[in-house]
């Protein structure tokens, strides 16, 4: 390590190298579970530095972990095997909008919401909107292929990346894709790197596609006294020729938690609330709203409210935003999952989750992106209570099983990281997982870049205890 440090100091300005115990502990966590102490943290500011550091890491066989703002919910940036953390969050200098090309070119540490903010100045929009957009970096979003409520209509991060600049695990600087919307030259490495959770390369620049900002939007709230009915209603709307921008669901536990946290006048006796946002031309929205109301009229006892103005719409969305904070009032630890099922299977998933809640006696709350089947089952617990955490681990395992059995997936947007690695084979099969591993081996023969993620180690199990 001494020799390595000497080499590092010879090529990186000293103020970018953090080695104190306090600094190292400060990059030892993310928003999931576990604390892993890196040996050194380097705040990188350009691709040459990264390239040199990776070459060095290959020589010394030291793991390297890229890190954005550490908001990962799956353990993505955790330095599980010690080594070097590369803090990308301070490399946030470039954010250029090219309105005529409808693209943005950004450095990796730029906050995602800033991209959208700047695009709006030109009447444009960067659609991916993870709830963490005002905190997380675009690099982290790209690595996790993040999604958000608007994913229903607009898709996720990968649908908006057309070009990347990447430092490979062996320290070479490459470009993938380009600035054009159409591009079919060779393998699509851009899409391979997006969602690879920092295991195939370090993103140093991204070219992102922008779209025109829709001129208007409106929000409606539908209240159901039957959860399964809400699932049927979702399918009906989506097959009626209307594509809402957002369609979000809150179950009764979430409704009650929000009301207890901050009374907004939500119907606590309801089994589910559906929030729908339409966007587009104002006249088209009006028509579509009518049509949705007609669809709801077929369902008995569903109450529908259309927000009169922006303020009212915002108050509806506020309720949805408050779910996360509200539920941790019950107990401090939140195990936040993002198991995703085909849309038609939402009612079945709800049924399954109900059973799991009873079987393991855990406090399970469900909300999320109903429109695309991306549910967020959250278990509220206390990580100091070992006995409870063991039950939670079992419940989580069963949630993943249920999702996969229903034809769904382990992760809709949070990534695999360390937490879901043990379940990969269950979804992909041995051969499928092996294909992915082979890609990793070719790109990173010394297993330098973000080891310990995505691929399970021999006998690895889900552990939510420290």
């Amino acid at each position, binding site marked *: 390590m001494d020799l390595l440090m000497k080499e590092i100091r010879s090529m990186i300005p000293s103020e970018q190298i*953090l080695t*104190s*115990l*306090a*600094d190292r*502990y*400060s*990059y030892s*966590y*993310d*928003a999931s579970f576990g604390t892993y102490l890196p040996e050194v943290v380097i*705040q990188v500011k350009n691709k040459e530095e990264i390239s040199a550091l990776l070459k060095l890491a290959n020589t010394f066989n030291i793991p390297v972990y890229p890190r954005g*703002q*550490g*908001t990962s919910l799956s353990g993505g940036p955790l330095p599980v095997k010690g080594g070097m953390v590369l*803090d990308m969050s*301070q490399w946030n200098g470039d954010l250029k909008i090219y309105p005529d090309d409808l693209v943005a070119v950004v450095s990796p540490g730029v*906050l995602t919401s800033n991209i959208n903010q700047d695009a709006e100045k030109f009447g444009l929009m960067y659609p991916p909107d993870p709830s*963490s957009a*005002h*905190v*997380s970096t675009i690099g982290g979003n790209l690595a996790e292929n993040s999604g958000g409520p608007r994913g229903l209509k607009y898709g996720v991060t990968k649908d908006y990346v057309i070009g990347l600049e990447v430092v490979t695990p062996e320290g070479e600087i490459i470009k993938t894709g380009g600035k054009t919307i159409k591009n079919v030259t060779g393998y699509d490495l851009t899409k391979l790197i997006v969602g690879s959770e920092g295991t195939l390369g370090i993103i140093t620049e991204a070219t992102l596609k922008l779209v025109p900002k829709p001129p208007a939007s409106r929000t409606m709230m539908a209240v159901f006294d039957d959860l399964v009915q809400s699932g049927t209603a979702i399918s009906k709307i989506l097959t009626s020729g209307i594509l809402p921008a957002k369609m979000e669901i809150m179950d009764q536990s979430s409704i009650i938690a929000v009301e207890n946290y901050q009374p907004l006048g939500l119907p606590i006796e309801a089994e589910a609330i559906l929030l729908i946002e339409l966007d587009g031309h104002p006249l088209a929205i009006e028509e579509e709203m009518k049509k949705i109301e007609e669809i709801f009229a077929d369902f008995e006892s569903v109450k529908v409210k259309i927000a009169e103005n922006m303020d009212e719409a915002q108050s509806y969305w506020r309720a949805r935003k408050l779910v*996360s*904070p509200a539920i*941790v*009032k019950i107990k*401090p*630890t*939140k195990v936040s999952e993002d198991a995703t099922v085909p849309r038609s299977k939402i009612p079945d998933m709800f049924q399954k989750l109900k059973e799991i809640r009873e079987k393991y006696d855990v406090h399970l709350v469900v909300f999320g992106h109903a429109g695309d089947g991306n549910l967020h089952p959250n278990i509220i617990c*206390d*990580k*100091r209570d070992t006995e409870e955490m063991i039950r939670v681990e079992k419940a989580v395992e069963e949630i993943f099983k249920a999702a996969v059995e229903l034809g769904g997936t382990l992760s809709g947007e949070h990534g695999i990281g360390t937490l879901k690695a043990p379940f990969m084979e269950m979804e992909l099969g041995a051969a499928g997982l092996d294909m992915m591993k082979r890609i990793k081996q070719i790109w990173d023969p010394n297993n330098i870049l973000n080891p310990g993620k995505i691929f399970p180690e021999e006998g690895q199990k889900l552990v939510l205890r420290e």
Partner: protein
Amino acid sequence: MSTGAGLKDRLHYNETFNCVQCGYCLPVCPTYETMESEVHSPRGRINLVKMLAEDKIKAEDLREPIEKCLGCRACETACPTSVQYGKILEGAKEVLEFAEQKSKAQKISESLIFDQMFPSKRWMNTIGNLSWFYQKSGLQKMAQRTGITHLAPLHMGKFESVLPDLPSPAERKKRVQVYKASGTRKITVGFITGCVMDAIFYETNRNTIDLLTKAGADVFIPVSQTCCGALHAHAGKIADAKDLAKRNIEAFEKEEADYIVNNAGGCGATLLEYGELFKGDSDWESRAQALSNKVRDISQVLSELDGLSFTKEVNGTITFQPSCHMINVQKVKDEPLSLLKQVTSKGYREMKDKERCCGSAGIYNIVNYEDSMEILDIKMKNVKDTNASIIVTSNPGCLLQMKLGIQREGLEKSVRAVHLVDLLVEAGAVSK
């Protein structure tokens, strides 16, 4: 120092578990913005407190991150899970204060400042009369000699040049204990004069009383009130803070007040948390809470009374710099703006990130001068972008800091800073 359950309690270890490490507090933290590393972010600081409680790091590892925190508590407002950062910070400061091996000289000089000067009306008056305490009390020299709380380098000259004119000792003596409402009395309020506030911004206090009586309030000013204890609490001297609090509780209990009014965001915030300070203390908790329940910022009371009209145009465009503790702790947001809107001026222009700390933060700008100036420079850039000619503030510390900012930018000719209360008087406040 022993590391057992005692340390965990004092560090509020259990509160740290409410942090889910989501990072929502990062973008609002001024020190994370200027110092660019996780140790200087709220999430980082909370984690380090936890690490100390778990004996994974030493107290000394925590010292710099905690000392560089402004205590502005913007992180609390941003936090989706309501982590009590203020409590965690004070606990950490108390532990650090305890862990420090202090020299005898240090102890004596600290005792002089915290035990004798701040709580003492007489001292404060004297200081006020002489000029500001740092310049003339010999504190500067003493601080340099003893290196109290490693304050050096102190940039006293800079602060001295932005101090307002002070009233004569005779003027100070004229203050009485009760001022009657002009016209019909709507409410009775007690007034917290504040220590530094009263020493240096005597005029603003006089204007505060003037506005309150014109708006229809009887105002009483107990002589036995003392320093609110904010500086003590923030320096980790909880026992001293409690002693001062008790004296204030007794002082204000003597009269029946509808509200207890302050015009300094930091003092208001401390008084508002007296209840919390005495939590679990059977003798004092309810009395402290009773006081806390009555605490209001001057802008809240004036808005509620709605008893003033403004008769003179203020010459200039206005921008507003609210104090952190007013926004983040007292949660007073709209009232100052609605008052400002009643004033005739050349317009109001909101600055970017107006609610971000200006770097004043108690005595932060004195102990961490360079860091404070970096934060101030960002603030001044946002001020300049508004092209406003008047910066209105709601706290004496912020007011001085903004004056310093104006000076740093060389804007003395075109921009001035003024306390909200003084601006309202300047705008010709009269009873409705």
